[in-house]
């Protein structure tokens, strides 16, 4: 395999890496807010369930969660899942895992907002949802952005855990190519590393831009 074929193959597999990354963000960022509300719910069973969920998601390895979600439906419930379940299971696992982390980050952000903001909103007659959407949420986003950035960068690297169930993404591909006859061997991993690094530099740059964009207030 020529060097350029290898790079091309990695680039192709990177599409899946990127998709896992993107779908996880799209799913987990809003879900984290839902989980946060669950945890804050006055309905005790829901609150309890959410706390257990967060604790399990944060207390067990992600790689194990991926395997449970991928293998449990067919093995425990004898459901046949569609062919792309190998990919979907990874996304589902990532989404519910990251949502738990985001919920905790959001909680920290929201609880750090001074109570005076709620009081001012109340006196001005804002309804509860208006207060949250107009006053609290924007400030929460700004306060949690550095912590969210950390998670997003970790996510880029975590996508490689998808190889645990053989989902084809860049890391799985790199491992396969590296051991194959007439391939560039170890060089494949170096190139994969460069891919990850460049992607993360871009992600970090984007997040920095976002932070800058919110710099107009303190």
């Amino acid at each position: 395999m020529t060097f350029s074929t290898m790079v091309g193959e990695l680039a192709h597999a990177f599409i899946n890496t990127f998709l896992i990354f993107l779908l996880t963000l799209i799913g987990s960022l809003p879900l984290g807010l839902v989980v946060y509300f669950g945890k804050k719910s006055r309905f005790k069973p829901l609150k309890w369930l959410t706390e257990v969920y967060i604790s399990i998601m944060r207390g067990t390895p992600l790689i194990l969660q991926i395997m449970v979600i991928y293998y449990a439906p067919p093995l425990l419930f004898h459901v046949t899942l569609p062919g792309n379940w190998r990919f979907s299971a990874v996304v589902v696992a990532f989404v519910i895992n990251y949502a738990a982390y985001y919920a905790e980050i959001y909680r920290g952000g929201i609880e750090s907002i001074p109570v005076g903001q709620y009081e001012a909103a109340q006196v001005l007659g804002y309804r509860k949802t208006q207060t949250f959407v107009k006053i609290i949420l924007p400030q929460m986003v700004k306060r949690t952005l550095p912590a969210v950035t950390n998670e997003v960068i970790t996510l880029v690297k975590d996508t490689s855990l998808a190889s645990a169930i053989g989902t084809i993404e860049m890391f799985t591909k790199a491992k396969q190519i590296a051991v194959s006859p007439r391939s560039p061997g170890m060089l494949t991993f170096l190139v994969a590393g460069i891919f990850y690094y460049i992607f993360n530099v871009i992600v970090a740059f984007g997040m920095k831009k976002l932070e800058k964009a919110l710099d107009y207030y303190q």
Partner: protein
Amino acid sequence: MKKTVSLLLSLLMVMSCVFALAACGGKKTEGDSGTTAPSEETTVDTSADAKKLIVGFDAEFPPYGFVAEDGSYDGFDLAMAKELCSRLGWEFEAVAIDWNSKDAELASGNINCIWNGFTYTGREDQYTWSEPYVENKIVLVVKADSGITSLADLAGKSVMAQAGSSAVDAINDKEGFKDTLKEVVELPDYNTGFMDLDSGSVDAVAADIGVATFNINAKDGEYVILEEPLSTEQYAVGFLLGHNALRDAVNAELLKMAEDGTMKTIAENYVDDGLVLESLCLLNK
């Protein structure tokens, strides 16, 4: 207090899920071992009705499964399986799996056979098997300048083997051998193993002859294979226990392919990738 208890319970739940996964493969083995006669099957075996072979393979296991120069999946076993399907008029699908998860993949129906240098020896009762088509040897690869020439020389040394592979079994089963070693290093793939051999963090790599030959050819003169094999093992195509109909159909065609020279023709394409023609035991019959 209540909260702590419920947390522990939930953790247990997750853990039991995982053990259930592991147990699923194992339980079937226990229940069905010895019931080799198809007449004892209570359910109708419909395994061959789909007319589709979904081959689970390890794409990190040349020459049996690997990534070809153009980036597609290739390998002796895949080529054989593909040819077999086209002769039977079946649909063929190859799924790259994580080797450690092969039982779960098979049990969940994501694949319906494992055809990838899959060791038959020692696992006779755990799967439904085709005729063995490769007689393989597990050998030890050492650096040419290491001065190690026999198994006895490995006393106090580190030996690497792929986690979950038959090489690990071979080390464990070889009487009195493992106890002399300093340690057995189990790594997810042989690539890492040979890097460790290079760097000196292990002294030998236990692998099957195909993998060993491939790596020796790749690094001209740097490695040697110890003459005395650790074990001799056979490869066959593995099916979920009880899938006799599927096995019978595949097996019959496999034997034909060995007889009419198709297997040899295909095998010759993979000699450069480390396939040892002499190990193809069906050809020598």
